[in-house]
């Protein structure tokens, strides 16, 4: 025991007893070559695997799978035409209305090209050029009807005139033809998987649509140039993936910033390169293992490589710090590496485990993209234990550090402990251990917490902007969306209630009457623009079958009258019933997708369902984009609470284990709570709602934020237990770890701040919030830990022990515990 706790300065490795240290250390450092070889092989393997790395986004993976609304939707999606995943393409004639032979020729070509794109559900594609779109008219001879596109259409003036008449009597103005008749829409339903069972490649589809757009947008293309507007999840996902590729370049920027910071810190090229290289190796392993696990990157998990890299760099830098000081004292690099490993492995593992906890609690969120993020991130941080806690010291034991830098580092720390150089900053922080400053800091914090809390009361759940909130308001996609909502009477926010009956049950006049009631009830909700359902179709068809007499725009209680029109609806492919006549959606078109709007619709629809469900029919919530939004909001709001509870609980447990003092736990956790409150206030001020993208931020902010407290407090407590007063102990702790805390804060922030310029709105939001949380947690730790310690941790100083010489460096004092 005696020889173990003194880390002597050993300048010749021959003097070092390589049987010293624990088994892990011996296993690693006595087999260095094997370890390096294994790592090289693994890196090569994973690097090779990265060829197969795909970036995609999946509609299904964004769904909160076990929420009853989503289960209802998934169970019935096959029967819900036009409510699933679809793309809307609008083609505009810049030189007039759509009844122009050249324009219609181009429209027909685009229609045909889109029809054959992979993933398109051809049978249900709707445009004025597809046979499923029909007109109905009543004449003296009875009901007349046919496809909107005249069967003998040949582009002649006569057939265009017929088309114009059919468009008029089909009532598609506002849905398939714009209000001003200058553009026409193609509604393209998509199949989630192709014939072979492969999931739809959104990026490919989006690119294919983009190619069609550029082909017909210019004069060089065939026919007259047209303008195209494309919206739908697939297009948005495609744009997101394009955005992600831009985000990749941010990675280089983040790496450059990190390199600069490390160099500033170490002033040693060798160690800077080593730290960056090991962190990059971690990223390669992480990405490679994704491919091995059969996963890819999506707009959410793209953040993982950034964080893994940033965390790796900050932990690597600490290793450097220790080794440098040992080398500065004259210890041989191999021995120095082992000493550092001995000193910091457990602390490093604890800190990384805290990060893993931050990621792992995300697993409780029942949304596959977040689960995958949690898994790949835990994996990435786990990888860091190998690359930056094991491989890095081993490589350092070969490469060593620049002797000048090592001397400089040691000198600096000595200065700092004495309160000179950077130590002046630490001395300033030291004041917070005194009553006056501590009180002031705590009063200010309480004021901020109260203010933040009041502001955060306005925190909204869900997306707050119109269009696709994932993208910036001025993005092409959102401009297209604005054009389409401006020129068509369709809202992209659709809330659907599924009315489920036994087969043939949807034709029951009672069912249709209930559908009509539900539709009318939903229209009473202020956020509902319009509702539409099978009941409207029946009113129209029954009115039509009685010569168009408006007095017959009704749902009679005579089953035989209803039956005939249901048969018509089935044979004319109404999207309001399935072929078995067992499912009929009631659609509410909403003015927006704000949480209050969705809440109100959900409330009204559930109350209706509660009152009207019986053995004959059930009203199931919910499908449509807004149905999914509503379910997601409910899950996210709940997850936000439970996740905070879990992440704080686990952080408290970790701190309790590390500090063995409830007072120290309070000191560590209170600053984090302040940051969480302020982050919510910031979200309110920036107009960011609680959503899928902000959940990881909240968890990470706390999980990684506690690192600072772990570093600072563990040293401070140890020094206090050695007999130093609180003031001295904090000064020594901050001199030893303050730089590391600052370094961690700055490198983590540098890793994510670049996202603020991402074309993807939610990544920008995440970047801003994470940067704020990383930096603010750092400040909170440096200021509030001493202030809170003043009130809570004075008693930790052990009286009567022999206090070491104040000139001893903290880690030397520690080593002698």
């Amino acid at each position, binding site marked *: 025991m005696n020889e173990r706790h003194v880390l002597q300065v050993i300048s010749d490795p021959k003097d070092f007893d390589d049987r010293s240290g624990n088994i892990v250390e011996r296993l690693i450092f006595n087999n260095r070559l094997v370890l390096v070889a294994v790592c090289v092989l693994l890196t090569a393997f994973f690097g090779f695997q990265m060829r197969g790395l795909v970036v995609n986004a999946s509609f299904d993976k964004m769904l909160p799978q076990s929420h009853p609304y989503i289960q209802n939707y998934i169970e019935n999606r096959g029967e819900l035409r036009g409510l699933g995943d679809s793309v809307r393409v609008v083609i505009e004639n810049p030189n007039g209305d759509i009844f122009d032979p050249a324009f219609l020729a181009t429209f027909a070509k685009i229609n045909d090209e889109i029809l054959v794109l992979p993933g398109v559900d051809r049978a249900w594609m709707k445009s004025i050029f597809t046979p499923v779109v029909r007109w109905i008219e009543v004449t003296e001879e009875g009901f007349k009807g046919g496809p909107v596109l005249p069967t003998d259409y040949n582009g002649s003036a006569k057939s265009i005139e017929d088309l114009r008449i059919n468009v008029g009597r089909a009532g598609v103005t506002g849905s398939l033809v714009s209000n001003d008749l200058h553009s026409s829409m193609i509604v393209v339903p998509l199949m989630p998987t192709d014939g072979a069972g492969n999931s739809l490649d959104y990026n490919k589809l989006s690119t294919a649509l983009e190619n069609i757009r550029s082909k017909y947008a210019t004069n060089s293309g065939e026919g007259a140039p047209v303008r195209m507007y494309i919206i739908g999840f697939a297009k948005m996902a495609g744009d997101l993936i394009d955005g992600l590729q831009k985000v990749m370049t941010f990675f280089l920027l983040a790496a450059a910033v990190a390199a600069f910071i490390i160099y500033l810190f170490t002033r040693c090229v060798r160690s800077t390169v080593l730290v960056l290289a090991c962190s990059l190796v971690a990223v390669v392993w992480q990405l490679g293992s994704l491919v091995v696990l059969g996963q890819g990157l999506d707009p959410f998990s793209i953040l993982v490589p950034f964080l893994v890299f940033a965390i790796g760099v900050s932990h690597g830098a600490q290793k450097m710090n220790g080794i440098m000081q040992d080398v500065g004292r004259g210890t041989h690099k191999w021995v120095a590496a082992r000493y550092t490993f001995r000193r910091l492995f457990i602390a490093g593992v604890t800190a990384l485990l805290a990060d893993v906890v931050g990621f792992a609690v995300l697993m409780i969120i029942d949304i596959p993209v977040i689960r995958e993020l949690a898994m790949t991130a835990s994996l990435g941080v786990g990888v860091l234990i190998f690359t930056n806690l094991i491989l890095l010291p081993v490589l350092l034991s070969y490469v060593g550090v620049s002797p000048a830098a090592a001397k400089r580092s040691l000198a600096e720390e000595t200065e700092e402990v004495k309160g000179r150089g950077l130590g002046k900053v630490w001395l300033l922080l030291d004041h917070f251990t005194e009553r006056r400053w501590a009180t002031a800091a705590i009063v200010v914090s309480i004021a901020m917490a109260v203010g933040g809390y009041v502001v955060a009361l306005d925190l909204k759940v869900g997306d707050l902007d119109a269009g696709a909130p994932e993208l910036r308001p001025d993005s092409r996609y959102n401009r297209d969306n604005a054009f389409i909502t401006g020129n068509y009477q369709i809202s992209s926010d659709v809330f659907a209630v599924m009315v489920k009956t036994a087969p043939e049950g949807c034709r029951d006049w009672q069912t249709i009457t209930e559908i009509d009631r539900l539709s*009318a009830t939903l229209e009473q909700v202020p956020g509902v623009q319009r509702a539409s359902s099978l009941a409207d179709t029946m009113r129209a068809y029954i009115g039509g079958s009685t*010569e168009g007499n*408006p*007095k017959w725009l009704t749902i*009679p209680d005579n089953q*035989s009258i209803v039956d005939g029109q249901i048969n018509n609806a089935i044979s004319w492919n109404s999207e309001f019933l399935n072929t078995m006549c067992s499912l009929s959606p009631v659609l509410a078109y909403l003015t927006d997708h704000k949480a209050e709007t969705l809440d109100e619709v959900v409330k009204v629809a559930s109350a209706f369902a509660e009152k009207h469900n019986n053995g004959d029919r059930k009203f199931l919530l919910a499908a449509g984009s807004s149905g999914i939004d509503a379910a997601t909001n409910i899950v996210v709001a709940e997850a936000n609470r439970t996740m905070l509870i879990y992440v704080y609980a686990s952080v408290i447990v970790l701190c309790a284990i590390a500090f063995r003092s409830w007072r120290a736990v309070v000191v560590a956790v209170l600053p984090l709570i302040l940051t969480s409150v302020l982050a919510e206030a910031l979200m309110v001020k920036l107009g960011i709602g609680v959503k899928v993208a902000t959940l990881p931020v909240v968890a990470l902010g706390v999980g990684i934020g506690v690192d600072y407290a772990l570093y600072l407090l563990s040293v401070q407590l140890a020094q206090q237990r050695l007999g130093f007063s609180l003031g001295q102990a904090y000064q020594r702790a901050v001199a030893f770890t303050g730089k590391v805390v600052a370094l961690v804060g700055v490198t983590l922030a540098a890793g994510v701040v670049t996202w603020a310029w991402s074309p993807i709105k939610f990544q920008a939001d995440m970047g801003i919030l994470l940067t704020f949380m990383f930096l603010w947690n750092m400040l909170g730790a440096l200021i509030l830990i001493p202030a809170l310690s003043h009130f809570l941790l004075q008693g930790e100083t052990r009286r009567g022990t022999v206090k070491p010489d104040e000139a001893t460096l903290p880690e030397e004092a520690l080593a002698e515990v």
Partner: protein
Amino acid sequence: MGNRRTFILQVLGAAAAAATPGWAKAFVHPLDEPAMRNRLAARSTLLAVTGAGQRMVAVGYRGLVVYSDDEGRTWTQASVPVSTDLVAVTFATDKLGWAVGHGGVVLHTTDGGAKWVKQFDGRQAAQVAVETFERRLAEGPAIERLLAEERSFVDGGGTQPFLGLYFENERVGYVVGTFNRIFRTEDGGSTWVPWMDRTDNPDGLHFNAIAGRGGNVYLAGEQGMVWRLDAASGRFVRAPTGYSGTLFGLLPISSTTVLAYGMRGSVYRSTDAGAAWQRTAMSSLAGVTNGALLPDGAVVLVTQAGGMEISRDHGRSFTPLKPKTPMSYYGVFPGPAGQLILAGAEGMRSETVR
């Protein structure tokens, strides 16, 4: 054994029935369900509009009734005990009014349209008809046939709607509907007498409307058919327009001049109380749904396609008007000075006639 088993099954069945009352909620027929409060009442589909003194009253989908005391600027929803679709409304005095619709409902108001009560419905109508014809069975095969018909409606399930109504005064009135069905009251709607035996309608055509002016009462229905009440015989006698399609309504503009209108822009005019008819040209093929006689003698007809045509020569010829904000029109009523109050697919609107 068998008995015992049946008994157990019965007990189980009863237990199951008792265990599931919570969700086994029975369907409520719209005749038994009051109209729901409608935030957008004046913007919901309304099928007919009329006047009650200074007040305007309109009826529409799901038992919706609205009234306006400020010439159509603002509308208030009335209290209605049913939620069936209402299709026609009329007032005999400023206060006393009736409305009819699906479910065979007849509603009555005594306060100018703010509060309505149900006087009669399709179930009662069937019962009254069956009982009446059963009592009169001895009168011969015609009654026998009518009884068989009424019974077949009952057996078919559901109710027959009333599509039109006309009140000569606050006591005497008629309601008409599908399959030759017509009832008459002489006590302001308290009791109704079947009049199916007093129509020359051997094919049982639907009656879509009934109207009267200056002592003449007319019915309009399928196959271009009009009937006129012959005072001497007390029967509705045939007065065919010659048109083959369906007529939606009638607009008597003097004691002898009457317009009949219907699908595909069809308008027929008679100046001799229906004895002879001439077709009047309209500018579009859209179904003509309603008409109004303005205080200055002009006649306005409105269409399903949002068209509006005016005649200043008692219906001999029409010229189109251009509405500011067209919609599918279902009802029209003269408002104050040059205004038309319109009911339609998008609710209540008003337009100015120049």
